[in-house]
């Protein structure tokens, strides 16, 4: 039984450090969430455990981490629901060609480069418990991710939402998110099937049936939630309880089908009614407790698992640099080239590439799943956490370089996409 006072101290320390480092990062024009991710690393074995091992062990005794993990997992369930809730097919309105081309190429190219890199890394950083197919597909998926919520936050802060670039980037990120989660569900399915955790046919048929039922039946039933909201003018406690039950049922079903609980909550968010006021009201109910309290716990738990000390010697740092270089080349390169082919100028295409290269929190979620199912080792996990931090950190300064403020202001005053951009994203409430 976990000690309550230990847990309270842990939450207290994590919250204070996360807010403090987040504030410092805002001072250097980085998103708050970037600072919170770094705060998690600072509290782990990479800094606190390295400098003050006694303090680290007293603050985060191994026996207490299970409870911290459970809390952070609940936070992730809500977070993925909110990400799904924010996704809206209207994001593609009027930009279908550029968005579809850019998003597909910006997934398939890093995916291909990720699997190619796996050919080199698998004999060096994996072991015979992991099949090459699982390792390669996971690496490809992890390279393909774009952090929709962090991207939305950066677009809002840089006043890019009303530009063509912002609109295309957010549409692409939405498509990327859905595709990346489907890919990840496939990888989890393969790994669990090869470990005989859930029979493959149950997972395959069950997942297909569940997704179809959610899209064709549950989605229609859920439209009544919106009616109930409009009748009362607010989300009542009973309505909120019902939504929470639906979130947890969906998580439970997908977890038991073998494609991970997070996929279930994400899917539930995707099929929720998309009326602007309903989404805003629901986000407001869940967002603060998720983003301010529970996600920093997830960052801290990720930090506790991230041991940069495992990267010993030039060889390991070379692998780390290779992963970062491949991730940037695939995502930045793929998105830039495809945006250019879709008719954008090189400068605009470059800005799209920089934005799509933002991996942030979504990458951390995927990496934690990879570590849990044993498809990546702790050292690869640490390397890819560094990759996630670096690709997210570089977005703002690179964007400033490629697409400076004067051009952003000029494009923002153009009426090209103002309606769709402001109407569909609801000013990026996540990480507001």
């Amino acid at each position: 039984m976990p000690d309550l006072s230990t847990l309270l101290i842990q939450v207290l320390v994590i919250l204070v450090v996360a807010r403090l480092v987040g504030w410092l990062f805002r001072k250097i024009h980085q998103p708050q969430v970037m600072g919170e991710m770094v705060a998690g690393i600072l509290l782990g074995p990479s800094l606190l455990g390295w400098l003050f091992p006694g303090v680290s062990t007293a603050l985060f005794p191994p026996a207490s981490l299970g409870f911290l993990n459970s809390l952070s997992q609940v936070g992730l369930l809500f977070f993925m629901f909110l990400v799904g809730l924010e996704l809206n097919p209207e994001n593609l309105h009027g930009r279908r060609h550029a968005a579809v081309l850019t998003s597909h190429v910006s997934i398939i190219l890093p995916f291909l480069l990720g699997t190619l890199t796996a050919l080199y890394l698998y004999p060096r950083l994996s072991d015979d418990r992991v099949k090459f197919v699982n390792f390669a597909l996971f690496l490809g998926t992890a390279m393909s991710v774009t952090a929709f919520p962090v991207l939305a936050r950066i677009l809002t802060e840089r006043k890019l939402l009303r530009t063509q670039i912002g609109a295309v980037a957010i549409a692409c990120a939405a498509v990327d998110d859905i595709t990346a989660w489907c890919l990840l569900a496939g990888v989890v399915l393969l790994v669990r099937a090869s470990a005989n955790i859930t029979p493959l046919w149950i997972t395959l048929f069950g997942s297909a049936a569940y997704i179809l039922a959610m899209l064709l039946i549950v989605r229609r039933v859920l439209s009544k939630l919106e009616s109930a909201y409009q009748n009362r003018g607010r989300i009542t406690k009973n309505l909120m309880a019902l939504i929470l039950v639906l979130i947890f049922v969906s998580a439970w079903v997908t977890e038991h089908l073998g494609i991970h609980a997070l996929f279930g909550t994400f899917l539930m968010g995707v099929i929720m009614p998309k009326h602007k006021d309903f989404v805003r009201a629901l986000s407001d109910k869940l967002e603060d407790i998720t983003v301010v309290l529970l996600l920093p716990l997830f960052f801290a738990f990720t930090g506790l698992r991230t041991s940069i000390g495992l990267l010993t010697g030039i060889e390991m740092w070379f692998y780390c640099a290779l992963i970062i270089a491949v991730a940037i080349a695939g995502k930045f390169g793929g998105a830039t080239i495809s945006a250019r082919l879709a008719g954008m100028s090189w400068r605009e295409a470059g800005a799209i590439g920089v934005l799509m290269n933002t991996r942030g929190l979504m990458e951390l979620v995927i990496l934690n799943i990879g570590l849990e199912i044993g498809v990546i080792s702790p050292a690869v996990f640490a390397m890819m956490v560094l990759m996630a931090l670096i690709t997210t950190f570089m977005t703002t300064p690179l964007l400033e370089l490629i697409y400076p403020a004067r051009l952003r202001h000029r494009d923002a005053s153009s009426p090209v996409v103002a309606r769709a951009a402001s109407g569909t994203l609801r000013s990026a409430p996540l990480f507001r």
Partner: protein
Amino acid sequence: MFLVGVPVLAVSGVLRVGERLRPPIFVGGTWNIEQAAPTDADSLCGDSLINPNRTILTISQSGSHLTLMLNDENRTTFAGEIRDASIVATITRLTSDPSLDAQGFSPASVEFHATVERSSESDRLLGALTSRDCPTSALTSFTATRLAATAIKEK
């Protein structure tokens, strides 16, 4: 079509080629070390590192790179590699122990050697700790068996 179709074909080619690759064998996890029957040649240094009453060895593996942690309390740590079925690791951290200093023993000189024996029932490590600085310059040999997850919880 070209931008998506060609990479998809390439990915399937990569997956096919990669099936032939052979990664290092898996030795990660928690092992229960027991000292082999002591002999006159057994080193005092090794005795100090391995408690005959069951010592836990935790191995963190990333490919051929290994981090080994001995003893839950002292946290003696080694870093090393696995090549085929052989593990060689050198010590990277040892909690200060006055009894070791009194023996004129430098922790930095300790090496961990083991061979992996795989079986369908349970994998085993057969190994030894060596030290150039030990007064007897001899080995402390041990065997280790992998602990199942449930056994780890019970401990």
